[in-house]
């Protein structure tokens, strides 16, 4: 057999063997065996010395082509096998994506904290400071500085836990008003503050009463604040909390530390004011109390009430949350059943 034929034969066999291979290892072996230094092509080329000189370039070219063709056949087969392997692996790795996850739980902020912080952030946006104040407070700040002297009938409205004759568990976050007013430097601009926190009343705990609950007091004192500013501020608040289409209305009321005093109703977010069970078919829900700071309250803090005026408002986060989420028992906030707590994940 001529060298030429030998090479062609090797090519034919090589390509066939590559095509028959079933594993990558066979192809690797084939490459080493056929194309390596000890392989048949190298061996065959040793017979080159018997080839006439003029034919040698042709044989040389043929030998290179044979090598290339076998190489190509091996590579093609390799890539075919690779693809098969990947396909198989993918098939094997298929999972049931509906199986439950490995949970990575973030805790839930207490719904009252969510409610309070939502309101705090709203007022921070309007330039209010947040000042939590004291839970143990002096009678002086809790009552007297709010125009509620010792024998004032309004003291009946809120039964108080006293610690001593002069110290008590604050009954209202308004207790912070006097402290904020007397410490504010009006040369640096208006006083704008909200005081969120816990308050205490001598109440029996039931579905609508709790001896401990929360309040947020708001106060602005400046040269030019008016009832209209109070209305606009509370309108914006109620729209933030209860929805953009809410209206509010003022009704005259009485608090010793504001004059005029108003109760504030928001149009029912459930029925849009049409009347439903939540708003007791009135279309309106009472949400907070407010007013212009009583001149006595300003004067007691050394503020000239003929020059300055103040708007003050107080709201109950429990009430807000109960309304907004249909919570019917105030005690639920303090029992801390995790099933109750976790339903409010991410609401605010």
């Amino acid at each position, binding site marked *: 057999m001529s060298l030429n034929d030998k090479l062609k034969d090797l090519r034919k066999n090589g390509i066939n063997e590559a095509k028959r291979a079933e594993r990558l290892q066979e192809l690797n072996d084939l490459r080493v065996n056929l194309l390596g230094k000890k392989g048949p092509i190298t061996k065959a080329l040793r017979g080159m010395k018997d080839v006439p000189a003029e034919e040698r370039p042709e044989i040389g070219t043929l030998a290179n082509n044979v090598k290339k063709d076998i190489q190509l056949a091996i590579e093609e087969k390799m890539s075919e096998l690779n693809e098969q392997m990947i396909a198989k692996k993918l098939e094997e790795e298929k999972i049931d994506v509906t*199986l439950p996850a*490995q949970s990575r*739980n*973030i*805790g*839930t*902020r*207490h719904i009252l*904290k969510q409610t309070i912080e939502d309101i*705090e952030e709203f007022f*921070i946006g*309007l*330039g*209010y*400071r*947040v000042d*939590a104040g*004291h*839970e*143990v407070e002096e009678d002086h700040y809790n009552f007297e500085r709010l125009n509620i002297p010792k*024998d004032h009938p309004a003291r009946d409205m809120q039964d108080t*836990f*006293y*610690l001593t004759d002069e110290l008590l*568990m604050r009954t209202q976050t308004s207790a912070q008003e006097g402290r904020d007013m007397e410490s504010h430097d009006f040369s640096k*601009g*208006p006083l*704008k503050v909200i005081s969120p926190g*816990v308050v205490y009343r*001598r109440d*029996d705990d039931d579905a609508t009463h709790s*001896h*401990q609950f929360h309040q947020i007091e708001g106060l*602005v004192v400046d040269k*030019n*604040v*008016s*009832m*209209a*500013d109070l*209305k606009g*501020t*509370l*309108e*914006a608040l109620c729209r933030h909390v209860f929805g953009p289409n809410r209206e509010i209305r*003022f*009704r*005259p*009321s*009485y608090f010793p530390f504001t*004059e*005029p*005093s108003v109760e504030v109703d928001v149009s029912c977010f459930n029925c849009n004011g049409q009347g439903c069970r939540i708003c007791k078919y009135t279309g309106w829900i009472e949400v907070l109390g407010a007013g*212009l700071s009583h*001149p006595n309250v300003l004067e007691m803090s050394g503020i000239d009430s003929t020059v300055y005026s103040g708007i003050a408002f107080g709201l109950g986060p429990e009430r807000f949350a109960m309304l907004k989420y249909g919570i019917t028992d105030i005690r639920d906030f303090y*029992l*801390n*059943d995790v*099933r109750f*707590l976790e339903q409010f994940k991410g609401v605010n």
Partner: protein
Amino acid sequence: MKISLSWLKEYIPVTHTVEEIANKVSLTGIESSPVKLGQGLDKLVVGHITSIKPHPDSDHLNVCMVDVGEDEDIQIVCGAPNVANGQYVIVARHGAHLPEGKRIKHGKIRGIESNGMICGLDEIGVPEKYVPEAFQNGIYLFPEAEKPGADALVLLGLTDEMVDLDITPNRADTLGMNGAAWEIGATYNEKPDIKSAELDESKVNGSVDITAEVDDEKLVPDFLLRELKNITVGESPLWMQRRLWNQNIQPVNNVIDSANYVMIEYGQPIQAYDLDKLQESNVVVRNAKSGEKFTLEDKEEKVLSHNDLIVASGSQILGLAGVAGGIDARVTADTKNILLESAVFDGASVRKSAQRHDLRGDASNRYEKGVDNGKVSEALVRAVQLVEQTGNVGSISKEIVGNKTEAKPTVIKGSISHINHLMGLELSSDEIMDIFDRLGFEAKQDGDNVTVTIPTRRYDMSIEADLVEEVIRIYGYENLKGTLPSGMETSGGYSPKREFGNKLRNTLLGQGLDEVINFALLSKAEVKDFNIKETDLTKLLHPMTEDHEYLRTSLVPGLINNVAYNQARNNNDIAIFEQARVFDRPKGEDRPNEVEYISGAVSGNIANDSWNTTSKEVDFYDVKGIVEELLSFTNAKAHFEYVATDQITNLHPGQSALITADGQRVGYIGKLHPSYQKEHNVNDAFVFELNVDELFDLNKRKVQSQAAPKYPSVSRDLAILVGKEVESGQIVNDIFNNGGKYLIDANIFDLYQGSHVKPGHKSLGYHLVFQNPNDTLTDETVEQAFDVIKESLVQKFNVEIR
């Protein structure tokens, strides 16, 4: 107070429905709700009993023939003890609807046909305690002949429509019809027509038997009496009675009813005494002697305090001033001569007496909130007039004055511009003056200034801000457009401490702990349970219950309650925290410090059995990991350490630690003591508590950015055998103390203390990491450092290097 529209019509025209009026009054003045009596009741008519005979088969029933205005009388069987022939009664006809869904049908009673029911007042909607005594155990009898078949509800006032005013304490001027008419009138721009009371001068007698005096003129600014002689006491006319029971006042007799009627008209309480029962000819208002005894009309005895103001005649106590009359000089059916009192007593004094003796009522309610001292005298005249109208009066004395204070109308000065400024409105002076006029205020304008004279009935008015309120409410809050305060811009925000606290809360939320809020007032046992600092306890003066008696000294008892509450409901896997204040009272001081704490409790599994995982119960190190992450967010420069302790009573002595920052205690962590767990019905639980204020006060790290390391790190593993008592923390500290400047990490990867090591020993494995930020470390350098570490451990802890 409930304002009957039929009564209101005597003062102002009433053209709106009761619902409309209640709504309008709520928006302009006083929170009100509509009340409609007799809703759903029907077929209740006047009946005239034309014959009566005993029921043949009963010893207490009677068979009555009753004229109900139809051609034929109807037969009704009646069991009331007070039924008799000739009476005018209330008949519920066949098909009548009574309150609470009760329905009357004809039928047979013990075999005798009965075509309706003869009713008592309580059966048709008057609460029993307001039914006149005579009719409380039987049927109601009309005092005079009425037309048979007429609508009984209308005659009895039980179809009245009323506006129920829920007043705030400052608006007691509307606790009388006159004041209410002014208020509702101002709302509708109607001036009320209020007639003043006048005396029948022909009966006024100059001589008096009685003198009056008051001990303390401040406590009793007005004390006026009149004697009425030769009067007749009897049942009041129906028009008066029905107005009283609709005000929740029981009609008694014409004298007492007249006194009560004046209170409803004027808001001025009137008291009546039997003149002939007075011990002495002198009536004195004085403070009671401590321990003095006083018997109420219902015979209940009260022991008085020296702070109680009483009306007395000698040693005889006629009444507790402004609160209640006594039995001694009570007006009865036999009374011939009476003394009427119209007075003003100090509101605070009345309030305290009423509270002290649990006797708050219509009169004390009005005194507490204030009465119009401009009408004291006129109200007394009105009472005389009514007694005269409802019974005979022989003679009337002149006014006997114990004390009389001139009623001075308040004058308020204000300015149109300032009033507008406070409202945020620009009303014309005419509009404002018109509102004052509607309210019955006399206002004079001088340029921008106004001088407003307030009638004495509006004693709530004293300053310009009060004028602002009157103007804006009558103008209508609904017409006010909202604006935002337009002053200088301010930068709002949280305090740095609050922001710090929020950040710590977020680390716990991020690690899956739910946030709780607990009560700050706890039981004595609870506040003692985790009072680690042994601070003085702070107790309420007058707690409501033993459960909420002391201010908490730790948040942990509340968290344990939460764990117990949840686990009792099969929520077994609990991870919760709270950030709130505890109360730490320095020795000898009244006021506790309020300290912010953040505390957590974890119990149950932190991972559950699932298709691809197995459950894992929480252990000390899980909770320590939570705390460590929190502490890393304090950004404190301090070195935090966990120092084993067995000193915290309710924690496991072998699984608890104090947490220190550079040696200073900032909190603790540990497993609950098994006996505490048992006592509180919780499963194994771990708690931690940290003082947020102390963490906040720690010096902060100054972070100077460093580039991520460019050179590779080199690691070495160290395996040692060491006595069981040696803590890993000691080993790690020593490794760092000796590891040189390139040691950046030392992690424990193995702990073994079983049977394969020497008794009393444990085997520990540490993975040490060295790195030079500026160069590649050589093996030699690392080996040197490693040797120093090993040598020190051998020397200090007698370790065996393995």
